């Protein structure tokens, strides 16, 4: 596992944001809002935590990553491209015929995608299956699942959660991207989640709520859960801002699944670059 300093990780998160927004701009299609809210913990996972090998994407002992909120594929693709699973120039092919970068993650087409996702509410069950498989084989790998807050309205999330607790899957870490927005409005308006941390805690998870844009808190949390072999699955609820890093996208429902035009794209790149050189 490579290790980065906090400063390096913060810069990497901005690079991934730039790549994700560029992909969506070039494709003129895709989901920038949630890609940007998840960018920081996805960066920390791929560049500081997960034991993966781009040379051998299907290495049996690798840590697994399940993007249950599959529509934010651009941020995972950005991580995979920067990590070396696919050539960086592939970012120009998002959503194109034959591309490894399908509209939603496709494990048959993209190296490093551990399972196809996209239909909300289902990825966590898959992650639980992977974690259980690891336990049955007495393997040391861990499974990281990224779940949206809106996605937690699907009942299957809770079916998966209760199974993770029953089978004592302490090798499972669930990140909730709690940005408070979904397609039709705020989660408060559409279907209140109340407190997702309390919900997962009530199911028997070991939980923690953090600032999902603080690399310090993300790294500290990952350090804590790494050694916690207490029979409990982990849930990290991340307070995030949808569209984080691009001023006009931040907390704007409309940027859930829309591509920027040229002017907007240039502004996004300018703002992200400013962050990079801050």
């Amino acid at each position: 596992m490579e290790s980065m300093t906090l400063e390096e990780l913060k810069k990497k998160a901005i690079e991934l944001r730039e790549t994700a927004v560029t992909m969506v701009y070039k494709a003129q299609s895709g989901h920038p809002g949630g890609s940007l809210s998840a960018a920081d913990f996805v960066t920390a996972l791929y560049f500081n935590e997960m034991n993966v090998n781009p040379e051998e994407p299907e290495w049996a002992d690798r840590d697994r990553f399940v993007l249950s909120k599959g529509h934010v594929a651009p941020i995972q693709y950005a991580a995979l491209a920067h990590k070396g699973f696919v050539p960086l120039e592939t970012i120009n092919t998002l959503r194109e015929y034959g591309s490894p970068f399908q509209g939603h993650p496709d494990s048959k087409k993209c190296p490093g995608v551990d399972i196809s996702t996209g239909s909300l509410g289902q990825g966590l069950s898959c992650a639980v299956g992977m974690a259980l498989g690891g336990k049955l084989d007495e393997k040391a790998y861990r499974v990281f699942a990224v779940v949206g807050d809106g996605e937690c309205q699907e009942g299957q999330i809770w079916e998966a959660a209760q199974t993770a607790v029953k089978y004592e899957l302490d090798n499972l870490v669930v990140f909730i991207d709690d940005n408070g927005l979904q397609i039709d409005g705020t989660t408060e308006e559409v279907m209140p989640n109340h407190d997702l941390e309390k919900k997962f805690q009530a199911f028997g998870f070991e939980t923690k709520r953090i600032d999902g844009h603080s690399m310090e808190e993300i790294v500290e949390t990952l350090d804590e859960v790494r050694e916690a072999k207490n029979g409990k699955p982990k849930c990290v609820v991340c307070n995030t801002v949808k569209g984080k890093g691009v001023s006009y996208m931040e907390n704007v429902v409309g940027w859930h699944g829309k591509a920027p035009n040229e002017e907007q794209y240039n502004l996004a790149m300018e703002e992200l670059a400013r962050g990079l050189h801050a």
Partner: protein
Amino acid sequence: MTVIDLKATEQIATRQAFGDEIAKLGRDNKNILVVDADIGSSCKTTKFMNEFPKQHINVGIAEQNAAGLAAGLATTGKIPFVSTYAVFGSLRMAEQIRQEICYPNLNVKIACSHGGLTPANDGGSHQAIEDMGVLRTLPNMTVIMGADYHSTRKLVKQAAEVYGPVYLRFTRDTVPVIYDENEEFEIGKAKHLKDGKDVALIANGDTVHLALQSAEILEDKGISVKLLDMHTIKPIDREAVLECIEIGKIVTVEDHNIINGLGSAVSEIVAEQGKGVVRRIGVQDQFGESAPYEKLLELNGITVENIVNMAEEIL
């Protein structure tokens, strides 16, 4: 090819064949797992569970999760058999099977008891009349229903040996044992039970014994019958269907809605060839209700009498 005299044979539900075979397979291969959703006892997985508790996962009443969990397990090299009733395994889990099992083409088997009208007295809510059709439309999926105890055991074993998603459907009720226990079966290859030249009967699952009895009656009347047990409706044995098209007159028999099951699969090939006539016997696009199994078959014309009449009618 040994076909046992139906009058002398014993009756066993094919869910029992699944229960017996999976327990045997679990012993030979530790990667074989059963994922249950609280109805293991009626799906006959209790023996497996008792013998191999570490290979048994019970997710409770949560079928959608069972499908996703099985997909995740399959990515780690396991061969999970998700076991539930056919109506839940095909419909409540349909989207999970599509997205997480068929789309990534994972090695998960969906093994379902209570297929067709066999959960008779449970009523229409529990009878699975559209399951094979729903799963037949999913790319990468194989769809199978064995006709009796021995064929079902062999097909379960084969399903474990081939890579990829497989849907297996079993009966709740007993059906006569047709085959000798040493008979071999191959997924995608119809079993030729009779060779004739006047009319072809193609049946699957719990209707094969009805077709077999019908064929004997027809033969007594001097009509030469070709009879196929089409245990795999996807991939269907195209070659065997083409042979029936040469005869030109085909009657299909199934315990499934006549829409999108065996009859439809055969009709698709017949239509593409542009010759031949097909009559479909099966559930007449209507829901069942609580009644004895025999009564439900009768209400849908899935009877020896109707098969014989239909065959004579198209001659």
